[in-house]
């Protein structure tokens, strides 16, 4: 459980970090919180030649709220999401999701940018970013570009990040009036990876669902909008009944593989249960 040898460097500025990453020609890996990366290094799942510690770069810490957009720097820690009044007020989905990420000690170190760049399909923040319609600001020595979260996640641990490119910040449109956020996940132990999870942005007219944007985690290869279920629940009234059309829609969006821990159809069943639970919970909140 010891990592292989590597070199380490802590750049003095973001420009310096870009320069190092460009020079390293794909052999360098950025580290910030390191809560997934260092576990992987200890287990020798990866063996980069150079670790570039971007964890103290001020340029990646800025937060702002302008023109309906909350911009969070890539180094926003999961614990910051939980404690932030700005997030609670404008991005309640993140406030709800953050307690599910690891444990307190992990949340004290792990970062928003790190979680998105790692793109674990069982992670909370990629699903939230897609559900919220976020845009990622990516930077390199060539300049900055913006990519929508739903285009950023390409597959299992795969993203649109190019070599020598870093996530600088994430721009979240604030939740509009009438929109409600719901998050839930099922895991074996508190803080463990989700077997099934759901990030939902929904608008309701009393007990009737007007629109829904549902993103699953833990039972899919990457964070993406579950279009079929999101469309199938529109017009339904809470509490949601078990229905064939709903089951068919969720089957179009999700086809979880069998794993040694759980059969795929069990996961699919849990996804249905969780979807009804989250939507019914939102309806109850809307009625209250």
């Amino acid at each position, binding site marked *: 459980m010891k990592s292989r040898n590597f070199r380490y460097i802590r750049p003095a500025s973001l420009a310096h970090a870009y320069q*190092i990453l460009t020079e*390293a020609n794909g052999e360098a890996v950025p580290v910030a919180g*390191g809560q997934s990366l260092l576990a992987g290094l200890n287990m020798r799942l990866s063996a980069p030649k150079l670790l570039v510690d971007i964890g103290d770069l001020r340029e990646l810490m800025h937060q702002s709220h302008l023109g309906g957009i909350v911009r969070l720097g890539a180094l926003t820690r999961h614990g910051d999401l939980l404690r932030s009044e700005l997030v609670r007020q404008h991005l309640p989905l993140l406030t709800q999701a953050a307690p599910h990420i690891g444990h*307190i000690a992990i949340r004290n170190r792990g970062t928003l940018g790190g979680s998105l760049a790692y793109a674990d399909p069982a992670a909370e923040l990629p699903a939230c970013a897609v559900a919220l319609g976020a845009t990622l600001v990516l930077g390199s020595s060539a300049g900055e570009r913006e990519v929508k979260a739903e285009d950023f996640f390409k597959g299992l641990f795969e993203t649109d990040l190019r070599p020598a490119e870093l996530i600088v910040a994430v721009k979240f449109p604030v939740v509009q009036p009438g929109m409600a956020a719901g998050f839930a996940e099922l895991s074996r132990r508190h803080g463990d990876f989700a077997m099934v999870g759901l990030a939902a942005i929904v608008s309701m007219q009393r007990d009737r669902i007007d629109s829904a944007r549902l993103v699953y985690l833990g039972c899919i290869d990457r964070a993406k909008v579950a279009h079929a279920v999101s469309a199938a629940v529109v017009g339904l009234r809470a509490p949601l009944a078990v229905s064939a059309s709903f089951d068919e829609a969720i089957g179009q969006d999700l086809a979880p593989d069998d794993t040694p821990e759980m059969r795929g159809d069990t996961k699919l069943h849990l996804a249905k249960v969780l979807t009804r639970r989250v939507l019914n919970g939102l309806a109850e909140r809307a009625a209250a």
Partner: protein
Amino acid sequence: MSTRDLSGHEDIEIDATLNGKPLKRRVKARQHLADFLRQELELTGTHLGCEHGICGACTVLIDGRTARGCLTLAAQISGKSVETVEGLTENGMLAELQKEFIERNAAQCGFCSSGMLLTAHELLSSGDSLSRADIRKGMSGNMCRCTGYHAIIDAVEAVMTTRARR
């Protein structure tokens, strides 16, 4: 480190604060903080269980907040303040928790105890009134294979209640 350095090093100079005292050292880039504390500084109160962030035995405080010693590189603490169970025992910050742990036999083999104490210390530092479920959730990142947790949760709850009465 000069801004012209682009390739990094396998040996890193660190300049940090450890248990309130300045610490200057040369560390191996690949060495994690818990190994550094134990092997180089002989601070063996920080324990190593799983070495991939699950068990919590290696918990330390970095700039006042808990962190996994196994998921932090020694090189990463440069410029930061680290506290271990040794430092927090000497300055008395853990005294109340330690007393309640001993009273209830909440430390059986003792392997998880330093991590438990530091996590409990952070959990109670806000001064918030926590339910038993809150305490369980807050302590859930630390594993104990002896006590069945009840005595540990009892001890944390007892310290919280005592402090609230003051």
